[in-house]
């Protein structure tokens, strides 16, 4: 059974804003080996013109993925997550995420494609502050292989 085409155009949004914390940014920077002081030292970040320590570019995925999961977990979509691999990923930033940001993610299902037994799901997730300032748009595709 292919993925439910009626999902194309649907919008998913969590009610809970995501608060970007300094500790979480450092944890993430440590995990990927990013050593820049701009991710760790508030004063250094401020001297570079940022309000607080900034997140590495792929950090936004931590936020967008939580929102994408609202789509994946919807039983009406018909996705078998155990057969999923990540296809494409992109980020388009208006500015870096920084500690203290409180953001909301809104995910739109852009398209669903079927190639034989394989299905692809394309989503775009908009990350904006609770005040409505755009920070980042992420795009993901996931591939579901059927046996």
């Amino acid at each position: 059974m292919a993925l439910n085409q009626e999902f194309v155009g649907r919008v998913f949004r969590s009610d809970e804003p995501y608060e970007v914390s300094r500790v979480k940014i450092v944890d993430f920077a440590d995990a990927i080996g990013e050593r820049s002081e701009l991710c760790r030292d508030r004063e250094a970040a401020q001297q570079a013109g940022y309000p607080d320590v900034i997140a590495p570019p792929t950090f936004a995925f931590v936020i967008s993925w939580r929102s994408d999961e609202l789509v994946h977990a919807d039983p009406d979509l018909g996705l078998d997550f155990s057969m999923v691999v990540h296809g494409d990923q992109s980020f388009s930033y208006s500015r870096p995420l920084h500690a203290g940001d409180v953001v909301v993610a809104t995910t739109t299902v852009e398209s669903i494609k079927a190639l034989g037994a394989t299905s692809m799901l394309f989503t775009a997730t908009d990350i904006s502050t609770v005040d409505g300032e755009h920070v980042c748009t992420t795009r993901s595709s996931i591939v579901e292989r059927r046996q």
Partner: protein
Amino acid sequence: MALSYADIEPGTEIPPKSYRVTRLDLVKYAGASGDFNAIHWNERMARSVGLPTVIAHGMYTMAQAGRYVCEWAGDPGAVTEFGVRFSAMVPVPDDDRGATIEISGRVTNKLADNKVAIDLTARADGTKVLTRARAVVRLP
């Protein structure tokens, strides 16, 4: 060593770098990112779905490519656009050496607003693990 937009020309090669990834790195990344899919840390689970061994998160590999660009630019906030396609998996053996991701890059274009476009290549064990890997970076 600060880079400047004025000094960069299309065709500028970014010195290649190698990044090692071990099982411990994947466990740390799972915790930091919240992606606890067992194929990234559990040999038994990885094999049960037909994988040769534990594989790195695609986003871990993308993060290394991002780190490479940020190290070159000298500012993790310099990246304004960044996109990849995941073209092959990165198997990470259960030893102290792990796997090595080799990344190189080249400036393709100078854009408006002090931005430059970069094409990236990422290989593990000689296999291209990212394709269509491109970033746009704003330089001073």
